[in-house]
């Protein structure tokens, strides 16, 4: 069953076409990754799906409701973590969370029971009575996440939820996303972090210039790179080696690893440098992502 269904959505801002006919479906209990470079239209898609802005053309359904026609009904069981958003700094964590519960129309008892549980799970229960002003970005984001979950959502939209977060908070949010999936919650995730998407998502769509240019499982996307292999090599000192430099290593993508490795060895011999380490790996989602974007460009 498709919990999110998008049919041929188009959206322009001041004559500039941002979405040029987007269609996809997200099944129940799936973590759906929505990837794309900056300005590709990810946030615009999230805003349309949460009923904030109306598409110029096309239809979008969330939990069976047409979001343009019945946005309020569609949002009842939807949690949202917008890209640029903030909690009320002058309210305490608890007041923020209870405000969210009231706006979802929860009764006081349910709200308090769920609120307490959530704040404990996210490790901010002890600071619930402090004003949010004093919170770190990670703590605020955890609270935002609690506010999205207080309605026991069927669907949750996360727009770059871990960008700019400390490692511990980011890891906590990721673990929570996996737990939610196991509970049957559908997750719509946009992210810049390819490792994160690879780790979490069941399916991904890549959007560029307002169009979806690839849609598959993370492994399926990687295969699109077409059997190429990444060879990583580290020398014992600085040399002018032709290859992408990553930290103290060089990476070369190739479809013929044997040939490439032989050439690297010859290179090392001719320059009189020693190879400290050399290994091959299959391309990452990031490799595939960059390659796909490059091909379309």
């Amino acid at each position, binding site marked *: 069953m498709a919990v999110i269904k998008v049919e041929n959505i188009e959206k322009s801002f001041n004559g500039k076409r941002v979405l040029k006919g987007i269609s996809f479906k997200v099944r129940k209990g799936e973590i759906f990754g929505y990837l794309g470079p900056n300005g590709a239209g990810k946030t615009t898609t999230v805003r349309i799906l*949460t*009923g*904030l*802005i109306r598409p110029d053309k096309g239809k979008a359904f969330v939990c069976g409701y047409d979001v343009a026609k019945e*946005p*309020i*009904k569609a*949002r*009842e069981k*939807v949690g*949202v973590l*917008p890209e*640029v*958003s*903030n*909690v*009320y*700094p*002058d*309210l305490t964590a608890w*007041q923020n969370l209870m*405000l*969210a519960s*009231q*706006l*979802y*129309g929860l009764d006081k008892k349910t709200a308090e029971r769920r609120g307490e549980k959530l704040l404990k799970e996210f490790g901010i229960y002890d600071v619930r009575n402090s004003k949010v002003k004093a919170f770190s970005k990670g703590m605020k984001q955890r609270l*935002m996440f609690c*506010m999205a979950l207080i309605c026991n959502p069927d669907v949750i939209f996360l727009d770059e939820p871990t960008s700019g977060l400390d490692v511990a908070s980011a890891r906590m949010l990721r673990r929570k996303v996996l737990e939610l999936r196991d509970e049957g919650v559908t997750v719509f995730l946009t992210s810049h972090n390819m490792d994160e998407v690879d780790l979490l998502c069941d399916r991904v769509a890549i959007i560029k210039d307002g169009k979806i240019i690839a849609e598959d499982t993370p492994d399926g996307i990687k295969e699109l790179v077409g059997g190429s292999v990444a060879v990583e090599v580290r020398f014992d000192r600085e040399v002018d080696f032709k290859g992408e430099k990553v930290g103290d290593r060089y990476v070369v993508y190739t479809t013929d690893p044997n040939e490439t490795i032989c050439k690297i060895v010859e290179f090392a011999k001719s320059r009189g440098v020693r190879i400290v380490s050399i290994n091959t790996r299959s391309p990452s989602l990031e490799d595939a992502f960059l390659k796909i974007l490059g091909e379309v460009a």
Partner: protein
Amino acid sequence: MRALAIAKKDILIYYSKGPVVIFGILLPIFLFLAFWIGRDLPLNFLMAGLIAMTVFFASTSVSPVVAPWEGQMRTLERLLTYPIDVKTIILGDIIASSIFGILLSAIPLAIAFGVGISVNPLIILGIVVSAVCFSSLGLLFSAYPSNIPATVMMISALVRFPMIFISGIFIPIDNLPWLGKILAFLSPLTYFTDIARFCVGLKPFFPVYTDFAVLIGYTTLLFVLSVKLHEKALLKRI
């Protein structure tokens, strides 16, 4: 009701700030003193003006800046994605603003009792109706989609200050030239001032039920207009 949750949020955040409350009390009192000193006006005439001015300033002080503030603080987008419509948000803001106006009206009422002026209890109903009306007017000021609170405050000041001069607070409507009278008829504050005058034993310009009818009419109009304009403006703030 979800609008009450919005109202509670507003009160906790915006109205519990010390300066807001102090400004709400001091501004009308200063204006009042400035006009009283050196003029030989009957005390009950001045009290009617003070009550009207306090309710007016209190109800229009914070309501215009809530929306730009939320836009600037980046709390607005999340607020708009809850299962609530713009009408509910506006209604919540009006409820909070009206409560503030009603509470602050206790100060001029206490002063009136202190100086021995008897006030018709009908004033309470007048205060409630006009607080709602002025709060709706305040929200209309923020329909201009700027996220800079100072800009919206300037717009509201440009309307609020002239309004107190044409609404029969300092100069009775009877004494205004014909152009002044026309402006006075357009100002909702005129009708509340008129009710206040009636309540302190002065002869009102209009029959009191006309005053109430006009205030209720204005409230409905301003509310509908606020909702319509904010539905467009709020999206420009995110």
